[in-house]
C-alpha cells in the first residue's frame, strides 16, 4: 500500500535533495571551484531534453505507432553532428555578447530590437505553455495512478476536480516554488546558474536509471531477454505491425526529424543549458557524442516496455502513456514503481525548472523591462537599487508561466496524448530557426525580415496547430476544423488552401515554415538594415575565435562618467557585484577607476555588456544611452571598421610596407639623382676637357695648313718642318680619339677582354721594341732588370702591353733632358707580379700622386719643350690594371725621379708551377 502522504514525502525528499545539490553547486561556484566544469555534467544537463514526454510519452507513442517515437531523438543527434557550424558558433556569439536567452540572441542580432525580443518571448511563452502542461499532466497522472496501488486504475479527468484539490495544480505551485528557489535567488551579471545545472545533471541520471530499471525488468524479468520478448510480440499481429512497415508509412519522419533538430537549439531551456550555461567551449567536443549516446540508451527499452505493456494490458483499458509505471505496479513491484515515479518526477521537474527560469529571464529582460523603460525610463533609471525589482519580475514570471501551463492542461491537455502536446511546442519554437540560423550566416538579414518571418510563421502555427486543438477540446466549434472558419473550405486549418492528405503536424510545419522563411527572406531583401543592425549582423556572422574577434570592439563614440556607470550597474546587479566586476576590469587593464573621471568607450561597452547579461541587450542599450553622452559611431565609420576590418588591417599593413618601400625608393632616387648630377657635371667637365684636348692638336694642324696654303713660296726646310708637325699632331689626334674611346668602353664595361695566361717577360720585350724609337729620338738610356723567372699573369696581352708602353712613354717624356735614364724593374712583390718604370726626371709632387691617374690630369710641373701627352695614358693604365685585379701607383724613385709601379695577381697555373721552377733553379 502506498499512501499518498508517503509518495508526497518521498517526492519532497527527492526535491530537497535536488535543492541541496543545487545549493552545493552554487556554493562551490562562488568559491571558484565549479563542480559542473566538465563535459560529462554538461552533456547530462543537455539531457534535460528528455522530459516526461520521453519518460512516459515515448512508450505511449510506441504503443500506438511503433518506431515513431524515435525521430524526435534522431534530430538532435543530427544537429549535434553539425555542432562545428551551429552550436559552437552560437556559443561563441553568446559569450562575446553576453547573451542570456534565445530572445536576447535574436533581438541582439537584429539591432538589439526590443520589438523582436518581445515577439520571440511571446512566441516562446505561448509555445512552451503546452509543454509545461505536458509535464504537469504527466506528474499528476503518474501520482494519481500510483496512489491507487496495487490497483491499476486510470485517474479521473482533472476538469471534474476543483482546482485547489487538483494534483496538477499543486504540482504546478510546487514546481514554481522550486524554480524560484533555483533560478532567482540573486541577479548575476553572467546569468549562470551552476547549482541548477548540477541539479539537472543529477536528475538526468535518475531518470535514465529509473527508465532503464523498468526496461531491464520488463525485458529480462518478465521475459527472457529481447528475443523472447519480440517472439511473444510476434504472435500478436497488432503488435508486430508496430515495428514493421506501417500503413501510415514514414512520410512524417522528415518533419519530426527537422522539428527536433530545430528544437534542440531553439527551445528556450535547451538554449539555456547548452549555450548560456556552457562554461567551456571545449566541453562541446565530448558532449556532441555523449548527449546523443544518452538519447540512444534511454530509447533502447521504449519498444520493449511498450510491447510488455500491450501484452500485459491487451484490453486497452490502461493508457499506454502510463505503461512505464503500470507494468511494475501490475507486477506488484512497489519499490520499482515508486522509483519510476521519482524518475518521471525528475524528468518533469528538470524541464519545468529550466524552462521556467529561461522563460522568466526572457519575460523580464525582453518583454517587461523594455516596456517599463519605454514608459518611464528616465524615472526608472534614477531610482535606487533595481535588482530587487528584477527579481520580483522574474519570480512573478515563473509563477505566471506555470499557471499558464496549468490552465492549458486543465482546458485542453486532458484530451490529447503527451507527445502530441510536445510536438505543438516543438513546432512553435522551430519558428525561431530561420531568424536564428539565417542571422548567423546572412549579413543582409534585417529586423524587418525577422519580424515578418516570425510573425507569419507564428500566425500559421497558431492557425494550423493550436486553434484546431482548442476546437478538438471543445473550446471552439468543431466545425472550425471540419469545414473551415465561416465554412470556407480553403481555410480548413488541417488542409489549408486545399493541401490535404498530410498529417496535421507536417501540414502545419510546411505552411508555417514556408511563410516564415518567405517572409524572412523577402522582408530582409525589401528593407534596409539600420546602423546597429548592420554592426550586429557583421559581429554575429564573423564571430571567430574563442574570445570573439570583436569582443573588444566598441561603438560608443561619446563617453560617460565612471561614477554614472558604477551607479547604473549597481542598480541592476547590486553594489557588491558591480564593485567586484569593475574592479576585475580595472585590474586587467591597469586602470584606477577611482581616479578616472571619464570612462572611455571600452568601459562604456563593457558596462553595456554586463547589463545585457542582467537585463538583455535591448534594455541595456537604453540604460547605457541614458548616462552616456554622445552617440553611436556613425554608420559609415562603423561599417568601414566591420565590413573591412580584415581588409583594412591587411591593407594598412601593405600600405605601411609600401610607404617604407617608397621612402627607401625616394632615398635611392635622391641618391641616384645626386649621383646623376655629379655624373652630369663630370660629363660636362669631361666633354669640355676632351674638347680642349682635341682642339689643341687641331689648332696646330689648321694653322700650319693655312700657313702652307697662304705661303707657297716657303723654303723647303721650313715646309718640311711644318708638314712634319702636321703629321705628328694628326697622329696625336688619332691616338687621343682612340684612347678616349678605349676609356669610355672600359668605364662602360663594354671592353672586350681576351684574358689568357701570359708570360710577362714576352710582353715586356714587345713593349721595349715598340718604344725603342722614342728612346733613340732622344739620348735616353734604358735598363731592364728582370728576375730570370717571372710569374705568369692572367691578363689581356695587348692591354698589358699598352700599360707598359704608356708607363715607358711617360717616363721617357719626363726623364732628365740631358742625361735621361729609364729603368724597368720586373719581379715579384708580396706574391704578386711587380713591374716598375723609373725615371730620373723631376718626380711627381706628393699632392699629385693620386690625381695623376685621373683623366686629363697631368702633373702641374711644366715641362717646357716636351710634346704634350694625351693626358689619358695613366687613366687608361689604371683602368686596365684594376681590371686585371692589380694596383698601380707612383712614388719617388731612389735618388731622383718618379717610379710608376703596378702589381698583378699571379695566375693560378703559375702558382702551382712555381715550386717546380724553384727546385729546378736549385738544381
Amino acid at each position: 500500500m502506498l499512501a499518498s502522504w508517503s509518495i508526497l514525502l518521498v517526492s519532497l525528499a527527492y526535491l530537497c535533495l535536488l535543492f541541496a545539490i543545487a545549493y552545493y553547486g552554487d556554493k562551490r561556484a562562488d568559491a571558484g571551484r565549479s563542480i559542473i566544469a566538465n563535459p560529462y555534467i554538461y552533456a547530462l544537463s543537455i539531457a534535460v531534453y528528455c522530459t516526461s514526454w520521453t519518460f512516459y510519452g515515448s512508450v505511449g507513442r510506441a504503443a500506438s505507432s511503433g518506431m515513431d517515437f524515435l525521430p524526435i531523438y534522431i534530430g538532435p543527434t543530427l544537429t549535434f553532428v553539425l555542432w562545428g557550424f551551429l552550436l559552437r558558433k552560437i556559443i561563441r556569439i553568446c559569450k562575446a555578447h553576453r547573451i542570456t536567452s534565445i530572445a536576447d540572441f535574436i533581438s541582439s542580432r537584429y539591432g538589439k530590437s526590443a520589438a523582436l525580443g518581445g515577439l520571440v518571448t511571446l512566441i516562446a511563452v505561448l509555445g512552451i505553455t503546452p509543454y509545461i502542461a505536458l509535464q504537469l499532466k504527466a506528474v499528476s497522472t503518474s501520482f494519481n495512478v500510483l496512489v491507487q496501488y496495487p490497483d491499476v486504475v486510470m485517474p479521473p479527468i482533472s476538469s471534474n476536480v476543483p482546482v485547489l484539490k487538483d494534483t496538477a495544480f499543486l504540482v504546478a505551485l510546487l514546481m514554481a516554488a522550486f524554480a524560484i528557489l533555483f533560478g532567482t535567488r540573486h541577479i548575476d551579471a553572467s546569468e549562470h546558474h551552476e547549482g541548477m545545472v548540477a541539479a539537472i545533471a543529477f536528475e538526468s541520471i535518475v531518470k535514465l536509471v529509473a527508465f532503464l530499471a523498468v526496461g531491464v525488468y520488463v525485458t529480462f524479468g518478465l521475459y527472457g531477454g529481447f528475443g523472447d520478448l519480440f517472439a511473444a510480440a510476434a504472435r500478436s499481429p497488432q503488435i508486430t505491425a508496430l515495428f514493421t512497415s506501417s500503413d501510415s508509412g514514414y512520410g512524417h519522419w522528415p518533419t519530426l526529424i527537422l522539428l527536433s533538430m530545430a528544437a534542440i537549439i531553439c527551445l528556450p531551456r535547451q538554449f539555456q543549458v547548452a549555450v548560456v550555461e556552457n562554461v567551456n567551449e571545449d566541453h562541446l567536443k565530448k558532449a556532441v557524442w555523449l548527449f546523443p549516446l544518452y538519447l540512444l540508451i534511454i530509447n533502447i527499452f521504449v519498444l520493449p516496455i511498450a510491447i510488455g505493456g500491450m501484452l500485459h494490458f491487451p484490453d486497452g483499458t490502461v493508457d499506454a502513456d502510463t505503461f512505464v509505471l503500470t507494468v511494475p505496479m501490475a507486477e506488484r513491484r512497489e519499490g520499482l514503481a515508486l522509483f519510476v515515479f521519482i524518475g518521471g518526477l525528475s524528468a518533469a521537474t528538470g524541464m519545468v525548472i529550466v524552462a521556467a527560469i529561461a522563460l522568466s529571464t526572457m519575460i523580464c529582460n525582453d518583454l517587461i523591462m523594455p516596456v517599463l523603460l519605454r514608459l518611464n525610463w528616465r524615472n526608472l533609471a534614477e531610482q535606487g537599487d533595481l535588482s530587487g525589482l528584477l527579481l520580483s519580475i522574474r519570480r512573478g514570471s515563473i509563477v505566471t508561466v506555470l499557471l499558464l501551463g496549468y490552465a492549458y492542461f486543465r482546458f485542453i491537455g486532458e484530451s490529447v496524448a503527451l507527445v502530441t502536446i510536445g510536438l505543438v511546442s516543438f513546432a512553435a519554437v522551430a519558428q525561431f530557426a530561420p531568424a536564428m540560423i539565417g542571422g548567423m550566416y546572412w549579413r543582409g538579414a534585417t529586423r524587418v525580415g525577422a519580424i515578418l518571418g516570425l510573425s507569419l510563421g507564428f500566425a500559421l502555427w497558431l492557425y494550423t496547430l493550436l486553434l484546431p486543438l482548442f476546437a478538438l477540446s471543445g473550446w471552439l466549434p468543431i466545425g472550425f476544423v471540419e469545414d473551415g472558419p465561416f465554412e470556407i473550405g480553403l481555410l480548413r486549418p488541417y488542409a489549408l488552401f486545399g493541401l490535404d492528405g498530410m498529417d496535421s503536424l507536417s501540414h502545419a510545419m510546411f505552411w508555417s515554415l514556408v511563410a516564415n522563411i518567405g517572409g524572412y527572406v523577402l522582408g530582409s531583401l525589401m528593407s534596409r538594415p539600420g546602423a546597429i543592425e548592420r554592426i550586429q549582423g557583421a559581429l554575429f556572422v564573423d564571430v571567430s575565435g574563442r574570445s570573439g574577434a570583436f569582443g573588444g570592439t566598441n561603438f560608443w563614440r561619446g563617453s560617460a562618467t565612471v561614477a554614472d556607470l558604477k551607479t547604473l550597474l549597481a542598480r541592476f546587479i547590486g553594489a557588491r557585484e558591480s564593485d567586484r566586476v569593475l574592479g576585475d576590469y580595472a585590474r586587467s587593464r591597469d586602470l584606477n577607476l577611482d581616479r578616472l573621471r571619464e570612462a572611455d568607450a571600452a568601459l562604456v561597452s563593457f558596462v553595456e555588456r554586463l547589463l545585457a547579461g542582467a537585463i538583455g541587450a535591448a534594455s541595456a542599450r537604453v540604460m547605457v544611452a541614458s548616462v552616456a553622452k554622445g552617440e553611436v559611431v556613425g554608420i559609415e565609420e562603423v561599417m568601414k571598421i566591420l565590413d573591412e576590418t580584415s581588409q583594412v588591417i591587411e591593407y594598412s599593413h601593405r600600405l605601411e610596407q609600401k610607404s617604407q618601400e617608397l621612402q627607401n625608393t625616394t632615398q635611392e632616387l635622391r641618391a641616384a639623382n645626386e649621383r646623376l648630377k655629379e655624373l652630369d657635371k663630370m660629363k660636362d667637365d669631361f666633354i669640355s676637357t676632351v674638347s680642349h684636348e682635341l682642339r689643341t692638336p687641331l689648332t696646330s694642324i689648321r694653322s700650319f695648313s693655312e700657313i702652307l696654303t697662304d705661303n707657297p713660296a716657303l723654303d723647303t726646310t721650313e715646309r718640311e718642318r711644318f708638314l712634319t708637325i702636321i703629321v705628328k699632331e694628326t697622329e696625336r689626334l688619332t691616338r687621343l680619339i682612340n684612347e678616349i674611346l678605349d676609356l669610355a668602353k672600359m668605364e662602360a664595361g663594354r671592353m672586350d677582354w681576351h684574358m689568357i695566361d701570359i708570360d710577362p717577360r714576352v710582353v715586356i720585350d714587345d713593349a721595349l721594341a715598340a718604344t725603342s724609337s722614342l728612346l733613340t729620338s732622344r739620348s735616353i738610356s734604358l735598363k731592364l732588370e728582370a728576375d730570370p723567372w717571372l710569374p705568369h699573369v692572367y691578363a689581356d696581352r695587348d692591354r698589358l702591353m699598352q700599360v707598359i708602353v704608356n708607363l715607358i712613354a711617360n717616363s721617357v717624356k719626363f726623364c732628365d733632358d740631358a742625361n735621361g735614364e729609364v729603368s724597368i724593374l720586373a719581379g715579384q712583390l708580396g706574391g704578386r707580379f711587380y713591374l716598375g718604370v723609373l725615371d730620373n726626371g723631376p718626380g711627381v709632387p706628393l699632392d699629385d700622386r693620386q690625381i695623376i691617374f685621373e683623366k686629363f690630369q697631368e702633373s702641374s710641373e711644366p715641362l717646357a719643350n716636351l710634346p704634350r701627352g694625351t693626358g689619358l695614358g695613366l687613366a687608361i693604365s689604371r683602368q686596365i690594371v684594376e681590371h686585371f685585379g692589380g694596383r698601380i701607383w707612383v712614388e719617388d724613385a731612389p735618388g731622383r725621379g718618379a717610379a710608376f709601379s703596378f702589381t698583378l695577381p699571379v695566375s693560378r697555373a703559375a702558382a702551382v708551377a712555381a715550386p717546380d721552377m724553384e727546385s729546378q733553379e736549385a738544381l
Partner: protein
Amino acid sequence: MSRKVLVVEDEANIVDSLSFLMKQAGFEVLVARDGDTAIRMMQRRPADLVLLDLMLPRRDGYEVCREIRSNPEWASVRIIMLTARGRDLDRRKGMQLGADAYITKPFSTRDIVARVQDMLSPER
C-alpha cells in the same frame, strides 16, 4: 719701330705657328711658355699686344690678364685671349677681365693676323 707681340702659350707647335704668322706680319715676337714668364717678360720688355692662352702651367691666362690690367703702365696693352674652351662662360669671364678679344682655337690664321694688325694699326 716695329710693334712687339707677346705670345703666351705652352703648346710648342702653336707657339711656332703664331711666331711665324706675327713675324711675317712684321711684328717683333716674344714668347713665354707659362704665366710667370709672361709677367716677367712684360716687366722687362713690355709688349704692345699679348696673345694669351688661358690653359697655362703655373699662372693661368686669367691671372696674367688681371695682372696686366692692374698695372696702369700697361693700360694701352692689347690682349687677345686664345682658348680651346669655347664656352660662353669662359668668354664672358675673359671680357670682364679686360681682354680686347677672345678667339677660339682652332683659329683662322688670316683672322688672327687681321685682328692683331687692326689693333696695332697707327690709326687707332
